């Protein structure tokens, strides 16, 4: 079992449009090792979502795909995703059981006419053989874990009654509750404020450790990458620019685009490519630059206040 859980080899994707072909991915290759979190970063339109949609075979018919995507699930035969037939029974296993995904736009993943609790419980029932009561109880627990309060009431509400960040957390709960071997998160925290983002990142990471699975985490925030990922893949214009351990890539970026990304973090000091204290822009405020309130007394105050 030395191979990676997921191996993408020379993946190219072209879309046919009225105005000719759009080349979205160009010979993309990278691996997602077992028991680890791999982040994909890159500019808007660089091909991050096309890559993750290709793994779940969710690209439209207008897409022409070449290359290989190999999944090596624990205790099962390897799966060559790109050559799998749509009617192959393993397809169902792939989409529901082995791999689950948090989509970039939460509303597209939620049904407007079903209650929140039923939708999350449904995700449990699809993949595991438990009673509806158990599924609903698990759903409630997971919704609590992603930071929703008054869950008893919330499970009876509909998506339109939720705020943007609450919807995003429901979608995260639906993906986490399936215990997939590969969890793909496409910008899962863009609609969340930093305090909740931090909690979700910790939750994803601790579940990853508990379940020993792997996460492919798409984001445009290098701060998030530094906090959650073990490895990082940098994409630009449909190609992989560089990849390696987070430390290697963020501390010593080789590619000019990576340096540019680091430099364009709002508030970053741009005169040096390796300026990593970008978030430390304040002198007065207790900016933790990644740490929550360091001071225990302050922490206690905030805790009391949030009750």
């Amino acid at each position: 079992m030395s191979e990676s859980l997921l191996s993408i080899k020379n993946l190219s994707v072209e879309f046919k449009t009225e105005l000719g072909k759009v080349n979205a991915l160009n010979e993309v290759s990278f691996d997602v090792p077992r028991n680890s979190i791999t982040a994909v970063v890159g500019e808007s339109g660089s091909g991050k979502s096309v890559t993750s949609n290709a793994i779940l075979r969710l690209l439209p018919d207008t897409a022409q795909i070449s290359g290989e995507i190999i999944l090596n699930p624990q205790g099962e035969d390897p799966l060559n995703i790109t050559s799998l037939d749509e009617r192959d029974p393993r397809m169902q296993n792939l989409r529901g059981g082995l791999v689950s995904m948090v989509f970039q736009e939460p509303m597209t993943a939620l049904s407007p006419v079903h209650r929140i609790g039923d939708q999350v419980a449904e995700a449990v029932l699809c993949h595991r053989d438990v009673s509806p009561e158990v599924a609903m109880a698990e759903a409630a627990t997971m919704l609590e874990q992603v930071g929703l309060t008054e869950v008893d009431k919330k499970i009876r509400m509909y998506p339109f009654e939720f705020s943007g960040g609450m919807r995003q957390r429901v979608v995260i709960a639906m993906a986490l509750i399936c215990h997939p071997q590969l969890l793909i998160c496409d910008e899962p925290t863009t609609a969340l404020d930093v305090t909740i983002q931090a909690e979700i990142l910790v939750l994803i990471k601790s579940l990853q450790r508990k379940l020993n699975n792997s996460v492919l985490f798409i984001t445009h925030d290098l701060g998030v990458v530094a906090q959650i990922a073990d490895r990082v893949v940098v994409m630009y214009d449909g190609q992989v620019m560089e990849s390696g351990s987070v430390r290697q890539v963020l501390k010593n970026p080789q590619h000019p685009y990576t340096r540019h990304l680091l430099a364009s973090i709002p508030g970053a000091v741009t005169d040096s490519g390796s300026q990593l204290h970008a978030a430390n822009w304040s002198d007065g405020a207790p900016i933790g630059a990644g740490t929550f309130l360091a001071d225990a007394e302050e922490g206690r105050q905030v805790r009391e206040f949030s009750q």
Partner: protein
Amino acid sequence: MSEILTVTDLCKSFSDQPVVNSVSFGVRESTTLGIVGESGSGKTTLVRSILRAIDPDSGTVRYNSRKGWQDLHSLSPKELLPLRREIQMIFQDPFASLNPRMTVQAILEEPLIIHGIGDKESRKQRVAAMLEKVQLEPSSASRFPHAFSGGQRQRIGIARALILEPRLVICDESVSALDVSVQAQILDLLASLQSELGLTYLFVAHDLRVVREFCDEVLVMYAGNVVEQGPVEEVFNNPQHDYTRLLLSAIPSPDPDEKLEPLARDGLQLEKV
């Protein structure tokens, strides 16, 4: 500078739960007011009540239009229409706000047609110029929303709001899904429109780094209440409220050696990493 928008004692409850609790603030012309706050604290409800996309329970919203002060909540829909050209909103969920069956050309042209602006040819030119401003290729015009990336779709929403050359733009998490380099370009665009045309922005965001760079004043919401309000530098350098402090301390650093150590809040069972 005089105020362009004055909100007084705005209240909104959903099934007896107050979601926006007697919120008051003013925005000066040609400035940017940031609104930050926890998820679920009422930011979207607040800004949607301004244009009556949501009907508030009480409170007033007064807007200083080209024709003088108007009470937005006492106008009839017909009286409101010309003001909708002056006040535009960019939504949080770009996909849900774009009609999937319309091409980008039609999406961007629609507001111009509704407000009777230009002829077919000049509208086409305006659409092309707007696409260039939000850094989308000219060929995007003939494509449908599904054929774009998330960030590209968000830029279509931004283009649609700006094409009418509004005076007040309400942005609800409008740059959150953009990577930093495109985000910086869009913020530059918004800032240059502000200095060129004197635009005013109401800017809901959760990225405090962006708020600090882009906004003049900031309003911090917590559980439906405004807990802190003032010039950005003042609030961020000397936060008075615990939630503001918590927000400032939770920004992830791009340095892998500085690890997040989140504080478990009430109702959360988190294990330390």
